[in-house]
């Protein structure tokens, strides 16, 4: 197991090289000049040229890339062009917001989806099943930013129950944190709930047909034990595999949702950095996203072995 984890951690290196290379190339392929965006509108060509010189943008592409990799090896992601602070610091400041959003929405979607899927499977082909699955279909079909806007209209504008945006850190005020995170987390979770509950339902239906379920019933166990213990743990095996993919969808979804709800998170940081050609922030942000994906999928694999004793690494 330890060897497996180490092997997986080593696999991070080529992934990071590719991610950074791609972002380096892409940012320099699309038009736009960070120096022009930094400088005043009235700045002369010479002044812009000077900024370019300072940022090292006049160096050959390969030199820039190697220079950046060199800094990365020392754990230095560089300085933001515009924010007046290091990229590490900028990400670090916004990390709690993004983590709050994705984790809350992950917990919400997983618990709700598995519950709904199990209910739908146990009550298969009844009105309850059809109701739950129609709800799931809506979740899959509607884009999350639109869902977010609708939630704002309903809960913030009309009912006035929850704020339409902003963020209160967890360390300051738990209820304030929950109030600011709830709507974005729900709008982000709906798609996941739709996907996961359908997968849970299908898997549960299949598992309930298995011989060991009949054995469990022949032992005299109650239906809740048969479903909640014997069937559920088997259902979780494929569901956990999906969770890794699900979490990566949450991270990419948070980029949009943070903008809709004006949450100061990593997604929003990355979004504005792209618009303003803040190269170091873009690269740093992408590394953050890549590392978190790898980390989550590693967790999923470990969890997988824990749930299914037949899986060994």
């Amino acid at each position, binding site marked *: 197991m330890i060897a497996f984890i180490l092997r997986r951690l080593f696999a991070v290196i080529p992934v990071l090289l590719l991610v950074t290379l791609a972002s380096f190339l892409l940012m320099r392929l699309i038009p736009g000049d960070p120096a022009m965006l930094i400088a005043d509108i009235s700045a002369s060509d010479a002044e812009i040229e000077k900024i370019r010189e300072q940022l090292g943008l006049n160096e050959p592409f390969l030199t820039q890339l190697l220079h950046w990799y060199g800094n990365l090896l020392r754990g230095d992601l560089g300085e933001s062009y515009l924010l007046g602070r290091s990229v590490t610091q900028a990400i670090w400041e916004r990390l709690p917001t993004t983590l709050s959003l994705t984790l809350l929405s992950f917990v919400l979607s997983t618990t709700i989806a598995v519950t709904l899927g199990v209910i739908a499977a146990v009550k298969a082909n009844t009105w309850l099943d059809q109701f739950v699955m129609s709800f799931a279909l809506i979740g899959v079909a509607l884009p999350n930013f639109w869902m977010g806007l609708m939630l704002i209209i309903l809960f913030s504008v009309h009912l006035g129950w929850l704020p339409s945006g902003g963020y209160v850190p967890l360390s300051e005020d738990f209820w304030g944190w929950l109030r600011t995170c709830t709507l974005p987390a729900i709008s982000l979770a709906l798609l996941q709930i739709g996907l996961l509950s359908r997968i849970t339902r299908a898997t549960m239906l299949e598992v309930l047909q298995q011989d060991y379920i009949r*054995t469990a019933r*022949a*032992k*005299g*166990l109650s239906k809740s034990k048969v479903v909640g213990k014997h069937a559920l743990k*088997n259902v979780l095996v494929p569901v956990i595999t999906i969770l890794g993919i699900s979490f990566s969808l949450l991270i990419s979804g948070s980029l949009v949702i943070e903008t809709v709800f004006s949450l100061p998170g990593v997604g929003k940081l990355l979004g504005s950095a792209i618009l303003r050609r803040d190269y170091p922030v873009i690269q740093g942000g992408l590394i953050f996203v890549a590392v978190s994906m790898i980390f989550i999928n590693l967790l999923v694999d470990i969890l997988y072995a824990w749930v*299914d*004793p*037949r899986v060994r690494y």
Partner: protein
Amino acid sequence: MASPVIPLLEVRDLSVHFRTEGQKVTAVDRISFDLAEGEVLGIVGESGSGKSTVALALMQLIATPPGSIDAERLSFKGKDLMSMSDREMRAVRGNEISMIFQEPMSSLNPVFTIGNQLVETICEHEPLTKRQAFAKAVDLLRLVGIPDPEARVTDYPHHLSGGMRQRVMIAMALACAPKLLLADEPTTALDVTIQAQVLELLQHLQGELDMAVVLITHDLGVVAEYTHRVVVMYAGRIVEEAPVADLFAAPQHPYTELLLKSMPPLDEDLHRLLAIPGSVPSPTEMPTGCRFAPRCPYAQNICRETEPAMIRESPARAAACWRLVDYKVPA
């Protein structure tokens, strides 16, 4: 006058229907039999004869819907299984009536240790602590002949071979010393040598625990070796019932006769296996009259028109064939 001794199990006119796509099919049709305490009853028949369905119906494990169970009487130790609530029935299942299945490879839950699955059964029915139940689980594994039970108890099913898994299933079924064990083709999926071991084990434990066993099989050799009495099923009906020696000596129903003839003899060179021509009719297309008539070498007009009733020759012997009623039917 009924015998004053109440049989352990009394089945009267048990039927099991399934409703599929608006069609009602009858898998088991008005069957009746008794089982005494400590008796081993074989239920024999080809695939599709409804024998497994009988066992599942006794356990009330038929999914309803699409299934439905009817019985004039289905009593165990004088208690009516049909009128039991779900909770009462659960107290019987795995406790007083246990079942083992055909597929040991898939009948154990792959994600729980065998110890966990044994302890769960014990704790469901007996007021033991987890620790006591665990000790009992180890004892049960030893009882069914699993070597090194202290180590095996923490194994997962995939660590064990098919024969070992079936032993675990037996240990689980015997955990609460049931009065009745339903064994649904317990050795069909196993190697021949392992089959004998498992059946010997079952026979040994049956004697030791003095439990009644319903052994469902299509293997007449198994029936001859391990049962006291036999019920022969064909297309959802019981066609013959007899003590095992009588059945082999003088089968009364043509189906039984042909089944016996289709057994490969051990003592002579065999050039060709005798097979019963045709196959069990599908429950949706039951022939009128005797269900075996289309495959029966003795079938007469009356056989194709009217279904014969069970003719009871003695308390233990009965068969449903027109030949027993009227031998004067022209040949």
